[in-house]
């Protein structure tokens, strides 16, 4: 929060406002605003440079708007108090004033000035936040410097491909901290929108083109309540739009490299009898849609499950418990209306999975991990 | 309506005068038409002749614009008085339409 205050201050300085009066206003606002919302979800607790800059813009604009509102309210209250008919007398005919040139000029010029103050950082940030030129930068050996993630939004889940690392995951985005992470965004079916409130504003995933932008993550997610930041789909995309959540794990660059490496190399082996029988069912019924290896490219029909055991949600929104995994497999439709995972009857010869089969599948799936 | 104009009969000279004015105006219209045909011919033959695209497209648009102005001002009498509001709204519409062109040519894109 200290940095936020400082940046709010810098911004104000930069634009040469009545410095410290605005500063104190902004400070108060900051404290007030960050009072609400959850740390892992709120735009008011930004955890990355883009989010912070947008938060500064929020503070600056709120400050300006507060000035406007106060001015209006003062005139308004005075007018109502002073000029009630009960005060001025029942039969008074007020002077029929036509208008005032001076006043007109004042209330044209002052708003224009206020807007200019807002417009300058707006335009500057607009260009800054759209600058993805660093995406293609390479180091001396010709390796890409920055992490690029290809995000594909699908009904109702997210696929994250790391093209330069040759790995793919889903539902849970893993990114290194303190550097720019670039995103290529697109949708596979209908339009969605990719939003990590704490990291910065959203970008739509369109069906006919690839959008690009970047975010930075300054804070490791390990200390958060669930150990992750929340991500959201922000464009209405069908019945389960509300449930199209994803999670973001931010780790430092060293850990990230380790993670990427294990993703590429880990071949999963089922541990124990139950899990092995689960694997069997899985390879007959599920493997057609779900990959279990982290190496690969985008284009899965269903989420890649290589890191399933490391996640903290099932299907993006239910707590990761054995119970929920079973419930999900047993009846995806009732949990996430309209989603594209078939009901068990469709993949299990017209029958529901038995309790044992579900147990086995759950055991197997919970064991899928690259971190443990 | 209660306040319509009164029937007013022109005198013979007045009448003949207006007829003559109209006839001349009609001749003007035929000239306009000839110009329009001529412009169309230029446009089509320019394309048939196969000049370069960058040369031809502006010319085509210019020719079209001239034709439209001729239609509006002569055939549709926008040059006559009493068309102020009509012109105002038509041009507003045209300007908006132009903005639409610009937009659709710039910020609708392809994969």
């Amino acid at each position: 929060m200290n940095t936020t205050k400082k940046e709010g201050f810098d911004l104000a300085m930069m634009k040469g406002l009545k410095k410290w009066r605005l500063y104190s206003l902004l400070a108060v606002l900051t404290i007030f605003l960050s009072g609400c919302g959850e740390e892992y979800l709120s735009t008011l607790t930004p955890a990355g440079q883009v989010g912070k800059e947008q938060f500064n813009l929020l503070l600056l604009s709120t400050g300006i708007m507060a000035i406007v509102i106060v001015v209006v309210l003062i005139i308004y209250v005075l007018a109502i108090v002073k000029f009630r008919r009960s005060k001025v007398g029942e039969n008074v005919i007020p002077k029929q004033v036509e208008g005032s040139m001076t006043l007109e000029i004042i209330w044209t010029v002052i708003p224009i000035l206020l807007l200019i103050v807002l417009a300058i950082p707006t335009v500057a940030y607009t260009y800054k936040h759209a600058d993805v030129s660093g995406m293609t930068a390479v180091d001396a050996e010709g390796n890409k410097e920055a992490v690029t993630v290809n995000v594909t939004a699908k009904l109702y889940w997210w696929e994250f491909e790391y093209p330069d690392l040759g790995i793919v995951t889903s539902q849970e985005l893993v990114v290194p901290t303190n550097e720019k992470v670039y995103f290529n965004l697109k949708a596979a079916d209908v339009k969605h929108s990719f939003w990590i409130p704490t990291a910065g504003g959203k970008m739509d995933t369109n069906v006919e083109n690839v959008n690009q932008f970047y975010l930075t993550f300054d804070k490791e997610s390990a200390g958060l309540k669930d150990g992750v930041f929340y991500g959201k789909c922000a464009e209405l995309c069908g019945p389960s739009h509300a449930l199209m959540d994803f999670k973001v794990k931010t780790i430092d660059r060293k850990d990230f490299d380790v993670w990427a490496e294990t993703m590429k190399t880990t071949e999963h082996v089922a541990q124990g009898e139950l899990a092995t029988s689960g694997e069997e069912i899985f390879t007959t019924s599920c493997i057609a849609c779900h990959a279990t290896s982290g190496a690969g490219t985008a284009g899965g029909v269903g989420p890649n499950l290589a890191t399933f055991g490391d996640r903290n949600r099932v299907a993006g929104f239910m707590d990761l418990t054995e119970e929920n995994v079973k419930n999900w497999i047993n009846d995806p439709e009732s949990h996430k209306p309209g989603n594209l995972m078939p009901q068990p009857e469709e993949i299990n010869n017209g029958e529901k999975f038995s309790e044992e089969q579900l147990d086995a599948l759950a055991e197997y799936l919970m064991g899928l991990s690259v971190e443990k | 309506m209660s306040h319509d104009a009164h029937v007013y009969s022109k005198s013979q000279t007045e009448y003949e005068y207006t007829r003559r004015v109209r006839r001349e105006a009609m001749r003007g219209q035929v000239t306009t038409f000839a110009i329009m045909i001529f412009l169309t011919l230029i446009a089509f033959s320019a394309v048939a002749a196969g000049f370069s695209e960058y040369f031809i497209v502006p010319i085509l648009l210019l020719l079209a614009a001239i034709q439209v102005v001729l239609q509006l001002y002569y055939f549709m009498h926008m040059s006559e008085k009493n068309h102020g509001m009509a012109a105002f709204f038509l041009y507003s519409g045209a300007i908006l339409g132009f903005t639409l062109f610009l937009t659709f040519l710039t910020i609708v894109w392809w994969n």
Partner: protein
Amino acid sequence: MDFNTKYTPQSWPDHPEQVTLEGKNKFLGFWLFLAGETVLFSSLFATYLALKNKGPSGMEFSTQTLFELPLVFVMTMILLTSSLTSVYAMYHMKNHNFKGMQTWLAITVILGIAFLCLEIYEFNHYVHLGFTYGQSAFSTAFFTLVGTHGLHVAIGLGWIILLLIRNAKRGFSLYNAPKYYTASLYWHFIDVVWVFIFTVVYLMGVVG
């Protein structure tokens, strides 16, 4: 003064379409309508430009290969001429020459029908080539833009024919003069749109 007042060429007002309040309203309202139509067609044109030559991968049709200029040229000439004939009709209306007006409008109608037949022929031809409405975004946009114009022609024809028949026995009045006048405005507007169609769709399409 009444709608039913009979006029002589001498007493016939200079702007018979704008003498009554109803006429004035119709006149202005129609121009406003045309202003709205301008935006409507602009939207169609803009969409057409955005979707021109766009289709499923491997689409074989393009503006360069599809369009045939001679036919379009003939259509253009016909429509332009019909604009002139309707100017003649209005000329006769001002001169209080009812027969003249009806005759010229009838010629306009015939030209309009000829135009429409050629357009139908053209569409039919494309469909036979396989360039159907649902073939690609390009085909959809093309048929919608040009077809909307064609629909306007058809409506204009219906309107003028109705006027011709309706008033054949009645002659001029201040009641129908504005109707004739606005119908002719409409017809010119159709021509204006066509100027853009033959320029933007056909000529610029063939060029590239």
